[in-house]
């Protein structure tokens, strides 16, 4: 009798599949809920850039959400949360030099502290790095625009774990240093 024909083994397999589906479903719901319920500044920046510049979002085909979930589970280099949006084809023809700054300043909530702001409107370059302490973590919101392309990133980092990762780079017990040396 093969395992497929054994009713006990079949029931056990069904239970495992059902349990895995439930876990995956839960993780997906939690992931989506986290993205939706996350800090509104990130969403507002993306939304304002989309609407004011009629920018199109670079399709990720689910890679973005999967990446966010992977970061939430693996926490590589002390990063426990990461989300990003790539925007392209910003309609900058009517853009005045201070428009981009105005949009970012109005979209980001005051609890985010400007850490580094760099702007070179004549070169079409803007970089905004906002930070806020989150317990022993630090949350960073980065908005970068280069001409008609923009990227919005939010990460939550544990500085101690990031520092430890720099000293001993490994994810899930797999050392990355030797791989990097081999690749060189």
């Amino acid at each position, binding site marked *: 009798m093969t395992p497929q024909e054994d009713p006990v083994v079949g029931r056990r397999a069904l239970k495992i599949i059902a349990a895995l589906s439930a876990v995956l479903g839960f993780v997906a719901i939690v992931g989506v809920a986290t993205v939706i319920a996350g800090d509104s500044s990130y969403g507002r920046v993306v939304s304002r850039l989309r609407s004011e510049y009629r920018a199109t979002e670079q399709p990720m085909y689910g890679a973005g959400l999967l990446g966010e979930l992977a970061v939430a589970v693996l926490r590589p280099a002390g990063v426990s949360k990461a989300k990003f949006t790539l925007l392209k084809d910003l309609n900058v023809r009517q853009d005045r030099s*201070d428009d981009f700054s105005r949009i970012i300043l109005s979209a980001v909530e005051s609890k985010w*502290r400007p*850490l580094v*702001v*760099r*702007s070179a409107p*004549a*070169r079409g370059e803007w970089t905004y790095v906002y*930070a806020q302490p989150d317990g022993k973590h630090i949350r960073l919101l980065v908005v970068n625009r280069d001409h008609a392309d923009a990227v919005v990133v939010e990460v939550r980092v544990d*500085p101690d774990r990031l520092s430890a990762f720099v000293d001993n780079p490994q994810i899930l017990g797999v050392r990355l240093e030797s791989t990097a040396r081999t690749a060189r």
Partner: protein
Amino acid sequence: MIFALLIWIVAARPAFAQAQLKMDNLDRLASAAAEVVNVTIDEQLLQLASKFLSATRSADERDIKELVRDLKGVYVKRFEFDRDNGYTQSDIDPLLKQLHAPAWARIVGVTSTRELKNIEVFMMTEGSLIKGIAVVAAQPRELTVVNVVGPIDIDKLSRLQGQFGIPQLDLGSKPK
């Protein structure tokens, strides 16, 4: 003992706050500048950021970690212009007026007529305690103001160049 410590904390906070320069008036230069860099790192963010530095990774990192441990803030404003004289003396006068107050002392002044560069370093002290440092680096096409608030070892100041958004200001080479 705890009461004395609380009094010291309450008294110390505004003392260091005096060393933080008001630089908002410089923001009006942004519209004429080709590039503007603004760095604002307060005490809490500085302490979090210093955790990225390791005391064991290298001697430089250890020194910088020690250096920023007691700092209250690092503030940098840098303006780069496409043409000469993108700013005028009146633009930086409000800043210099603060630095010419008795609490501040000019400790270094470097003027290069060849490079048309003028770098001035000011220090605010109270007794033997350094409460803050300000660097004003002016060139025809560039203006940089650095304000470090908090107790700092003056000998190690040059090590902050290239860290926390502070540009290289030729304040002496980094010790090896």
